[in-house]
């Protein structure tokens, strides 16, 4: 996994490898949760959504185990330099993965509600593409972690832009649907939250990639990465003729 020499205390190597193996296991579960949550929404599959909801407990449990392992490593081995950075990054990455798991669970919960309503045309395929992109980002971030690959991690950080743009597009789309027919509001609100969950998951994948940069170089990457989610500041995202647009003129 690393090109570094072994520790004189071989148990230290085993501990470090064990904790990183848990991160990988957790990463696998979280990736599956994203895909399953997206699939359940797409196929209106309540059973699969239920599986995602119940599966989150295992992810939470792994996070707890990783925290305990990390605390034990710090107390017993007093890690320094790159060993210290492994332990610190493992703790942060597990927290990121845990949050992503929660968002996937939330998506699955909303799916449970959405299947009771008539579908919003066209929205599912955009959401599916977005979820797939998020899952790919996460996969790349975790690959970058295993391979200690800073270039790939930087690439993940840059690509978050695309997820932000997908979210912007969906935000406008849902707004339009809601204005067209108020009966769409409930469904669109849920769909919007799902899109927002995806966007947040992308941010957590980016944060994992940032941990990879820190782990390898010892420096935190600058906060100059592109941010394209403008929905929280930009009045212009509201479609023409909407209430927001008028108040801007006034």
């Amino acid at each position, binding site marked *: 996994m690393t090109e570094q020499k072994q520790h*004189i205390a071989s148990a230290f190597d085993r501990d470090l490898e064990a904790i990183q193996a848990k991160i990988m296991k957790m990463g696998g579960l979280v990736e599956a949760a994203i895909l399953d949550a997206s699939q359940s929404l797409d196929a209106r599959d309540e059973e699969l959504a239920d599986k995602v909801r119940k599966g989150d407990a295992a992810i939470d449990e792994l996070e707890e185990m990783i925290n305990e392992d990390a605390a034990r490593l710090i107390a017993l081995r007093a890690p320094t*330099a790159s060993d210290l950075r492994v332990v610190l990054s493992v703790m942060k990455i597990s927290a990121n993965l845990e949050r992503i798991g929660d968002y996937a669970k939330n998506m699955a919960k909303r799916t449970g509600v959405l299947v009771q309503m008539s579908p919003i045309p066209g929205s599912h395929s955009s959401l599916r593409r977005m979820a797939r992109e998020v899952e790919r980002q996460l996969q790349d971030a975790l690959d970058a972690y295993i391979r200690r690959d800073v270039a790939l991690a930087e690439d993940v950080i840059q690509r978050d832009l695309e997820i932000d743009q997908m979210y912007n597009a969906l935000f406008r789309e849902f707004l339009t649907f809601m204005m067209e027919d108020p009966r769409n509001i409930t469904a669109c609100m849920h769909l919007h939250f799902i899109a927002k969950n995806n966007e947040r998951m992308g941010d957590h994948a980016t944060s994992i990639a940032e941990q990879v940069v820190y782990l390898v170089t010892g420096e935190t990457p600058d906060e100059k990465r592109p941010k394209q989610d403008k929905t929280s500041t930009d009045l212009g995202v509201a479609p023409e003729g909407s209430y927001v647009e008028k108040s801007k003129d006034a």
Partner: protein
Amino acid sequence: MYDSPKSDSTVKHAIKIAANKVQVFYGDTHAIKDVDVQIEDKTVTAFIGPSGCGKSTFLRTLNRMNDTIDICRVEGEILLDGENIYDKRVDPVQLRAKVGMVFQKPNPFPKSIYDNIAYGPRIHGLAKTKADLDEIVEKSLRRGAIWNEVKDRLHSPGTGLSGGQQQRLCIARAVATEPEVLLMDEPCSALDPIATGQVEELIDELRESYSVVIVTHSMQQAARVSQKTAFFHLGNLVEFGETSQIFTNPKDPRTESYITGRIG
């Protein structure tokens, strides 16, 4: 606009000792190779490295303790406040009053606690009267964080104290001559964790007044007490920098291997 919490920088201290291109030979053995280092005032500098790397040898060049070894030869210059301590006009005894030393094993003189402290000030003529000397003894023992434990038995032998107390007595003895620099060669390796903690606390207090240089085999001790760390390997100074940087993000792979406990 808020100030970034990262913006406050660490305090810069004056350079107390500057070593330039220092070489040390024991007969044919080249023990220290081309070492350049600047030791700051009011700072604890730790020397770390595996056994035989030259850290103790280098420490001993700083107050010419190597003069006592016949086959030892020192080249290059070591400036204390800008003056070369290897200059012929420098009296090594006076130098050692300015650059005090504490050793690995506590080595109190076989005299009373009082006389252990009073010895240095007496030979250097620092006290004119008995009252002056009493004052120096009390002040030094307080600096050594041992006054409260020995004030009622100043005239009992120093060798009767516990190991940790003896070491603090030796530190008090070292500060009695009002040194400017304090060299410590593994001062805690013969002490238990409580005594170690007390000596480390003392080192932190001494930093207010002196420049302290400590050789230690305990990486955790270097990390706890020092602000600057120098890593020696095979007679070379491999890396010198802020302790926090050395322990979180060392630049040289040899430093990394050593402090993370890897086979190197």
